[in-house]
């Protein structure tokens, strides 16, 4: 552990964080650039919100698009109600279980397919065929199998997540350098050692790219499930709001969903930075 920490601090030194005249000049130019970019982004968002506010009620009726101020006040009010937090809790549960189940199975199947030639020859076209099903079309089936509660949504989400994860890991398995594996075999390494020290770390990049891609996919699965049939959840809330022509509520629900996805992405990114520290340190290649 201590050597790892040491390594990370040297890495920072090598990456050019040592303050020399040359690097500090570069940093100040970088900062100016970043400020310019941020200003551009803020202006764009303000412009969109401004146009939205201006046309709401004047050009397009309020019940169709609400307005930024309406959505903002609605969101604040909603977040103070107990039912909204119940909905968020339900959706979070569905999201976490669906994501986890899909990821675990995706990794297992991906590794099996990547390491056993017979298995991949038999199952690759079959899995591709199943992946051809528009997964959303299965929602009624899941409802039938798993009922109105959270498990039909969990099934829907994990079904979508599984395929994304599986393809990432499978392709990652095929991308492992055969030369590196052979070299370790000549060095005397047994299967277990190669699996732990060569294969698993090689897969860390495809696994994390899969983990990132899957967060919004899991949300799609959950929301579709809630749209089909549910009695709680953020998706259910949005559907209710729509049926009552409450466009402010609808937008608030969407904002809450986006926030949940972003939080999920942030958690994955946090983990990624801890695991893939060796990757960020490269400056040579």
């Amino acid at each position, binding site marked *: 552990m201590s050597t790892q920490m040491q390594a990370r601090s040297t*890495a920072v030194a090598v990456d050019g964080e040592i303050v020399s005249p040359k690097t500090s000049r570069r940093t100040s130019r970088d900062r100016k650039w970043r400020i310019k970019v941020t200003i551009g982004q803020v202006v764009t968002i303000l412009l969109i919100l401004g146009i939205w506010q201006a046309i709401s009620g004047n050009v397009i009726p309020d019940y169709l698009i609400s307005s930024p101020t309406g959505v903002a006040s609605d969101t604040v009010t909603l977040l103070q109600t107990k039912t909204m937090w119940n909905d968020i809790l339900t959706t979070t549960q569905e999201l976490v279980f669906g994501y986890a189940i899909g990821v675990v199975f995706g990794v297992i199947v991906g590794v099996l397919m990547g390491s056993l030639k017979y298995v991949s020859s038999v199952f690759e076209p079959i899995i591709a065929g199943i992946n051809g099903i528009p997964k959303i079309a299965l929602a009624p089936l899941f409802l039938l199998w798993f009922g109105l509660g959270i498990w039909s949504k969990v099934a829907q989400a994990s079904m979508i997540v599984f395929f994304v994860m599986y393809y990432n890991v499978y392709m990652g398995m095929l991308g492992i350098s055969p030369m590196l594996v052979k070299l*370790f075999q*000549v060095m005397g390494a047994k299967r277990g050692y190669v699996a732990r*020290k060569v294969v698993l770390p090689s897969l860390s990049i495809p696994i994390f790219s899969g983990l990132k891609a899957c967060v919004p996919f899991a949300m799609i699965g959950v929301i579709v499930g809630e749209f089909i049939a549910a009695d709680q959840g953020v998706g259910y809330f949005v559907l209710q709001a729509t049926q009552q022509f409450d466009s402010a509520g609808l937008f608030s629900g969407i904002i809450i969903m986006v926030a949940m996805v972003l939080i999920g992405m942030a958690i994955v990114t946090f983990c990624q930075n801890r695991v893939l520290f060796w990757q960020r340190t490269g400056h040579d290649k």
Partner: protein
Amino acid sequence: MLEFRNVSKRFETPGGQEVDVLQDVSFTVDDDEFCVVVGPSGCGKSTLLNLALGLVPVTGGEIVHNGKRVESIVSSDVGYITQDANLLPWSTVLENIMSPLEIRGVPKADRKATAMEWAEAVGLGKFVNFYPGQLSGGMQKRCSIARTMVYDPAMIYMDEPFGPLDAITRTILQETLLKLWQTRRKTILFITHDLVEAIALGDTVVVINGQPGGVKARIPIPLQRPREIRHLAASPEFVELHTKIWSYLEPGVGNNLGEEM
């Protein structure tokens, strides 16, 4: 001792055609000998190494390593240094050098001490906590040499290890290798397409040429050791050897160019 006895290798292309890469190759590498195999690209010299290591099977003849026929991956007491450094990018220099010791179950404290010694020996003492991605190509190569030397294999196979490096780094690393080999004698089978490198390093140069590749000559290099590689090219003995080896390469080189165009 490593013996090639009438070794042939035939590959099948994806199109179903059969290509002879090596035909009837016979030569012997003695214990503690630095044997260099030289030949133009496409003559099958890297294949020869893969056969000797048991990474691919021979289609004719046999390879005998210390009295044992090579039939599967050779992993006892041999080292393998490839053209790419092939380090673990997620492990530090020290962890990379320690990995063969870890495989051998050496206690952790000893592992670290031995690996440190070798990191120093190849000039990476200050870089033990760096990751391979932070090192130059030459330093990565030094690390891969240390990773092999650390477990003291009796025989080392090297497949154009200095090929991708610039001329200056290459010469310095060749000198480092010779210095290490001088202090710790080992049997080395070294593959290269660089004639100067072959003469500078080897006790013996085996010339492989043609398609399929075959042994054209086995030339002893009587140059005195220790050798100063950077000054070697100026000596008359060197020039003589260079001319002699070239004469075995010439006809085959013509063929290769013809095929490549």
